[in-house]
């Protein structure tokens, strides 16, 4: 199996969220970046498991600047064979998808793994766009994949149950929780990552199709309201009039 895993960075979940440039840019000052958990824990680890049982290679692909390299080294330490970074400022989803598709085109990848979303922008659209641009089948939000020859059996959650799909390679898949267990790199992996190839390629010509007009934070949480048992009737009124939940 020749597998490509798309790896994005995301701010650590404990980061303080702030914006700059008139609220049009995420302020990266002081933010610690991690490998996007869906890309790392589920997509990459499952790709490595497949490689370990069926043989083959796992290449990671990231679209971003030089600040991506620690993230990429971690993916290599976990076990990817080599990595590619498309040297481009991340722009909108279509731009990123075009970079991935342009790179992958004609390279003969059997499976292109993505995480189901990045935990910062939660767009969930890049893998679908990549599939469309490459004219490949796409399975979204998969939580289990098994392979027999070139046929994959994939399970995905649907509201209230589960859907089982069959698809032949090559295809694109977005990985959801449950696909694999977190793998902590070991020292041997960290040492091996020093010398694994990390190719930097120039971005292909593509334009962003959207521009950000502004970000805003959700309204601050208001504290708890206590209602005494004698005034239980108030609960209905508050839910109705204030929370507008009824």
């Amino acid at each position: 199996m020749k597998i490509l895993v798309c790896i994005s960075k995301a701010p650590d979940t404990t980061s303080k969220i702030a914006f700059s440039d008139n609220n049009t840019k995420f302020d990266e000052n002081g933010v610690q970046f991690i490998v996007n958990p869906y890309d790392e824990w589920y997509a990459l680890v499952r790709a490595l498991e497949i490689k370990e049982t069926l043989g083959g290679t796992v290449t990671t692909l990231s679209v971003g600047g030089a600040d991506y390299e620690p993230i990429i080294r971690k993916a290599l330490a976990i076990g990817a064979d080599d990595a590619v970074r498309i040297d481009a400022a991340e722009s909108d989803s279509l731009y990123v998808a075009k970079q991935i598709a342009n790179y992958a085109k004609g390279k003969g990848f059997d499976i292109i793994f993505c995480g189901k979303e990045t935990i910062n922008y939660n767009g969930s659209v890049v893998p679908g766009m990549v599939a469309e641009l490459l004219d490949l089948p796409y399975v979204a939000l998969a939580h289990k994949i098994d392979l027999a020859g070139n046929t994959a059996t994939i399970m995905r959650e649907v509201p209230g149950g589960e859907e089982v799909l069959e698809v032949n390679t090559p295809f694109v898949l977005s990985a959801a929780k449950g696909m694999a267990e977190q793998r902590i790199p070991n020292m041997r992996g960290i040492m091996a990552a020093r010398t694994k190839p990390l190719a930097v390629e120039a971005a292909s010509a593509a334009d962003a199709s959207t521009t950000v007009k502004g970000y805003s934070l959700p309204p601050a949480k208001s504290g708890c309201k206590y209602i005494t048992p004698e005034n239980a009737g108030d609960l209905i009124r508050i839910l109705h009039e204030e929370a507008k939940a009824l």
Partner: protein
Amino acid sequence: MRTDLYQGHDYYLMDEWLTEEHKLIRETARAWVKKEVSPIIEEAAEKCKFPEHLLKGLGEIGAFGPYIPTEYGGAGLDQIAYGLIMQELERCDSGLRSTASVQSSLVMYPIYKYGNEEQRKKYLPKLASGEWMGCFGLTEPDFGSNPGGMITNFKDMGDHYLLNGAKMWISNAPFAQIAVVWAKNEQGRIHGLIVERGMEGFTTPTMHGKWSLRASDTGELIFDNVKVPKENLLPGKNGLGAPLGCLDSARYGIAWGAIGAALDCYDVALRYSKERIQFGKPIGAFQLQQKKLAEMITEITKAQLLTYRLGQLRNEGRATSAQISMAKRNNLAMAKQIISDARQILGAMGITGEYPVMRHMMNLESVITYEGTHDIHLLITGMDITGFDAFK
């Protein structure tokens, strides 16, 4: 124990001095600790038993001899990386760090530094992976701060050495496969010998009743006419300086470890101070609690700077024993104070096993005593700056 929410604290942006690989090594150790150790450490401490199933994982994250060259199974890392791993382990528990310190600095280090090529090849790779564990026998019932007075001795019997004596307070002794034992020859000169489990006359009874370092096993080493093959003598160095050289390496790791214990308690106390409401506001909004928290992070930051610099000096081979003593002593005093303040910030919750603070507090009572007591390190600094020996 509650979910381990620990986050590092880097007030002076010292991470900028670390390489990406240093950070990955630290992150790896932290993730492993949170996954494998935090959920079980409280129970291990309660049961007073080292969780032996962790040994393989400790080997995998590079906690055993990370600075030993790769040809002997180590990771060939620098001293800062070693320090960071020790910090992450002790952040969880000093007993966990002790197990790794002993293996790295007191067993692998002397075999690497004072051993011959056959000894290095035979022992180091297995020790690095955790397949074999080692212990270090210096202290005796009647000789603690004054190990030079030791009674344990060996005689040259022609084709082997005959070892007699007893060591006490030995970390890892109950389960170790090998012991690096310091004993006097017939001329009264101290040498290191590798004693293997299974050698006739060698036993390692567990010591019971500890209220400190409960998640680390401590035992005795008893040598009753043990025949030690001659090839098990460490040829590279003898005299008291040989074991003291190992202690330098271990004490350096402890200096980092103590910062870990302090960081954990600061982290817990800071979070608690924002969540615990009294008199209608978070206790962190009261000046008295802020004083404690502000002083904690100040002292941690000072210790981080001191210790990072010591790491640089060790990387360059320039750190003196006295400089290492200063860092061990300073950081233990710092950590003990912070832990005590953190315990108070947590009120009654602070005495329970829900939080790690009491366990750290009890652990540090060992750490401030072993590897040279607090007093002994002061005497080392005193002698270094005045030139007068106040030991005897």
